[in-house]
């Protein structure tokens, strides 16, 4: 067996080389999480991203709006002049929370468009339409009740060059099937300071990454919203070696012979 697979590429035995090889593979299959900038969030890559508020036991709580507002600000800072579309009244933020105060900055409020579809079908249609519009920088939408075909349709609409679609989904739907590129869970951070409010954003799933379970490969960010300025910052909490390769191929150890009972 070993001799037959001898020409196959195997993972290097040196740990440093294994990490390097893992990063190379990750850059090939999941470029959104292979970013030299340590603070960059894969949730801003083109595609569908699902966000769950993880602290609600009944699973029908409020969407993680502070984190979504912070992400919208990052999109606007990187790509000013385009629109941010909020789809679904359940996912609308309180408009004054979209303003930075020091210095005064109303760009996000000015470029935000609030859409209130009457049904789920209209909501999916509106998300898809906004995702295909070149004037839209990001779509933030209520993703409650989305089925697998609908999520696949939205993922295709965002494609490889479309805007990020950030869906706020209730936590009771964490086990639902979805074609989303990433899946996140947000929980509040019980910290001591009073000048800022904090949440932890945990990457639970990232499509294209194989060979490691999401739980072991979780990546976490601390999201801080400043009380005085209204600004939101993202700080990585835990950077693991992320994706590891499978162990080198080898023959299985022979099972111990069973004792005959009779």
């Amino acid at each position, binding site marked *: 067996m070993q001799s037959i697979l001898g020409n196959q590429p195997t993972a290097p035995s040196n740990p440093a080389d294994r990490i390097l090889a893992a990063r190379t593979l990750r850059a090939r299959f999941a470029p959104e999480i292979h970013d030299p900038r340590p603070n960059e969030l894969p949730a801003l890559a083109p595609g569908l991203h699902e966000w769950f*508020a993880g*602290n609600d036991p009944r699973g029908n*709580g*409020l*969407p*993680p*709006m*502070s984190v979504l*507002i912070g992400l919208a600000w990052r999109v606007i800072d990187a790509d000013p*002049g*385009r*629109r941010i*579309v909020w789809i679904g009244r359940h996912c609308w*933020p*309180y*408009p*004054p*929370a*979209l*303003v930075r*105060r020091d210095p*005064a900055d*109303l760009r996000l*409020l000015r470029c*935000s*468009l*609030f*859409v*209130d*579809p*009457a049904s789920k079908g*209209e909501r999916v*249609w*509106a998300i898809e*339409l*906004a995702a295909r*519009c*070149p*004037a*839209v920088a990001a779509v933030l939408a209520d993703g409650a009740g989305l089925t697998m075909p609908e999520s696949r349709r939205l993922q295709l609409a965002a494609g490889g060059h479309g805007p990020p679609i950030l869906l706020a989904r209730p936590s009771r739907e964490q086990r639902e099937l979805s074609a989303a590129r990433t899946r996140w869970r947000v*929980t*509040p*951070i*019980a*910290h001591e300071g*009073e000048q800022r*409010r*904090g*949440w932890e954003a945990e990457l639970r799933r990232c499509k294209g990454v194989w060979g490691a379970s999401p739980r072991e490969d979780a990546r976490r960010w601390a999201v801080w*919203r400043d*009380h*005085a300025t*209204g600004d939101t910052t993202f700080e990585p909490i835990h950077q693991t070696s992320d994706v590891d390769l499978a162990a080198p191929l080898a023959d299985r150890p022979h099972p111990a012979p069973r004792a005959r009972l009779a």
Partner: protein
Amino acid sequence: MLLVTHERQRQIVARCCERAASAGVRPGMPAAQARALFVVGAVRIEPYDPETGRRALRRLAVWGERFSPVVALDEPDGLLLDVTGCERVWAGEQRLLHAATRGLAALGFVARASIAPTFAGAWGVARFGPKDTRLIPQGGERDAIAPLPIAALQVDPETVAQLAEIGIERVGDLLALPRSTMPPRFGPDLLLRLDRALGQAIEIIEPVRPTPPPEAQRVFEGPTSRTDAIGLAVRELIDEIAGALAARSCGARRLEVELARSDLEPHRLAITLARPSRDGKHLWALVRPGLERAHLGFGVEGVRVRAPAVGRIRHEQAECLDAYAGPPPAEIERSSAELLDTLGNRLGLDRVLHASPRASHLPERAFQMRRASDPRSAHEETVPKDRPTVLFDRPAPIDVLALTPDGPVHRVSWRGETREITACLGPERIAGEWWGPSPGGTREYFAVRTDRGEWLWLARSIESRRWFVHGVWA
């Protein structure tokens, strides 16, 4: 505000606002001299563009058609309306006069107006009369113009100066002269102007003809219920309308499609656009869903497409194509307008909104939602305080335990769970608006952090002493 023009390398005042005129500024005055009448920085000077003023006056003439179907321009700053018979609609000429001046004031214009039996008489009384508004009854034109200066007859300045040399400065003085002596000494124009003011000569005005909206229609040979044929006809008519709009350098702000059904009343579809457009493909994409849902009855005999509201599309400089810079701003703006149109026409214009801040301390009134298709932009630039990211439409009641009355919050019970409070910021007292109804009354707000790390925005009503959760930093 001064509008200046250049003459012999000097800035000359061409027009001025009412306040500048009351300060002594007159058209024809050097701008430097006019500027000296004001403190530094109190006067704003802009270049005078006669064409802009002409276009604005024409738009005002179209607005004036609500008072009379015959409106003529009296350039550079006047309108002539033939209101014969229109006073019945307005319950009298006096009411019509007041309605017109009030409407102009609402538009920001300072206006003087007069109604008289003759155009020339009304012109003179409005511009040189003692009052801002005046109604001259039938047969009273002679008495009305007699005390006015000679310039009220619209004669040229040289004639005014010649008459002034012989001591004739008022129209009444001119009326005392023998008619036969006027033409040889001052030319035939003076007598003609006088006769027009008195109603003894005909005066013809050229009314503004509003451009009819672009319209195209097609009649079928017989009633048809084939949607593909009807759609093809509508598509072609839209392209025809788009061509007509291109010839006018305009785009449609509203498009109406009318299907003439053989057995029912006509079926009408209307779409509203956020930005003027003459893109046939885009217009067809907006019309098509409504056309597919239309009830055709026993067949459609003809279709008609018209654009009752149009807007000017400015010519734009083509931009250099740069593959790395993304789409140009004009392309983004066009795509954005198309997105608004598509969303608004399918979901409803009231479901596609913009938000703008308002100067109000009450959280529920600190912003204003308005239609995204509304071309008017918000002017308020209020920067709000730190507010929760989610505000409840209806504050949720909550049980609160404080160790001391009016002291910091210690424990809350909300949604069937008890939570300890680890931080409490406040209170922030927000009173109701005394100038209007404020259902919530005066409240005290606290931002509290639970032992789970959640931040709640609690409100305590001063009147009822009850506690509510008004928002959450979710």
